[in-house]
């Protein structure tokens, strides 16, 4: 078979670029939207006490550097925040962060153990916010007790 066309001398043929540009634009739009839709996901690591579980050693109570307790409010959505058994008057996590920062400025060890205790019906977001406040203030050794507060 002969696919060659009779090209008149002195003329050249180029491929049609319009469909290729269309396809490239569609792929470009796909990636632009895909990049925006990707939900960022981060992680807050913690370690459970090593004495728990099979083969664990004696249960030794270590007094934490900082003790935070979250107790749910009557409406069930909010929570009261206690630090070292004292209720934060403001009750917001930004004030908890400020109080923790104050502890750091007063010389608290950033590697010291911070214990977050929560009553069972406190919303998960509040516990994460408390943990976020600790990490934000520079504390990294955050732990949770086996049982809850309240």
């Amino acid at each position, binding site marked *: 078979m002969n696919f060659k066309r009779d090209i008149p001398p002195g003329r050249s043929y180029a491929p049609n670029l319009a469909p290729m540009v269309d396809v*490239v634009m569609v*792929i*470009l739009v796909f*990636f*632009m939207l*895909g*990049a925006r839709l*990707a*939900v*960022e*996901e*981060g*992680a*807050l*690591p*913690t*370690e*459970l*006490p*090593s004495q*728990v*579980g*099979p*083969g*664990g050693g004696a249960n030794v109570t270590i007094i934490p550097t900082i003790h935070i307790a979250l107790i749910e409010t009557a409406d069930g959505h*909010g929570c009261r925040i206690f630090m070292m058994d004292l209720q934060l008057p403001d*009750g*917001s*996590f*930004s004030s908890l962060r400020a109080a923790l920062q104050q502890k750091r400025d007063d010389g608290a060890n950033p590697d010291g153990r911070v214990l977050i205790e*929560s*009553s*069972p*019906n*406190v*919303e*998960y*977001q*509040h*516990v*994460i*916010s408390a*943990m*976020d406040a600790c*990490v*934000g203030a520079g504390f990294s050794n955050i732990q*949770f007790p*086996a049982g*809850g507060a309240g």
Partner: protein
Amino acid sequence: MSLLIFFLLTTRMVERESSTRIDLPVARSAQDTDRQDLGNRFVVNVRDTRSEGGTGVEYVVDERVMSLSDVLNRLTEEKRHQPNVNCIIRGDRTLPFDYVQQIMVGCGRIGVTKVTFSATPRSQGGGDPT
């Protein structure tokens, strides 16, 4: 064409833990999971089904809904193969903490000490929590 190459290179290939839709809690200090060595992962999704007319909570592992005891059995099995397994908890922000704590207590019993909470650094639509 150069724009296309730019987006191809910069779009991160997001390794999704699960297609389970979870409204993660917000934490500004949540570290990017890509930059962090999370080790051997065991991902537990905890869905709040109350808004959908459900009874309360649903535990989802590998896209399968299961009871808490089944989740802990799977984790025990995982721990046998991977002693330093990291239990990643992806929970809905509106959940009562008790449901998450039950997993943590189970982890303690099994001997899994590494627990990681998934959170989003930015609020998706809603405002910042107080």
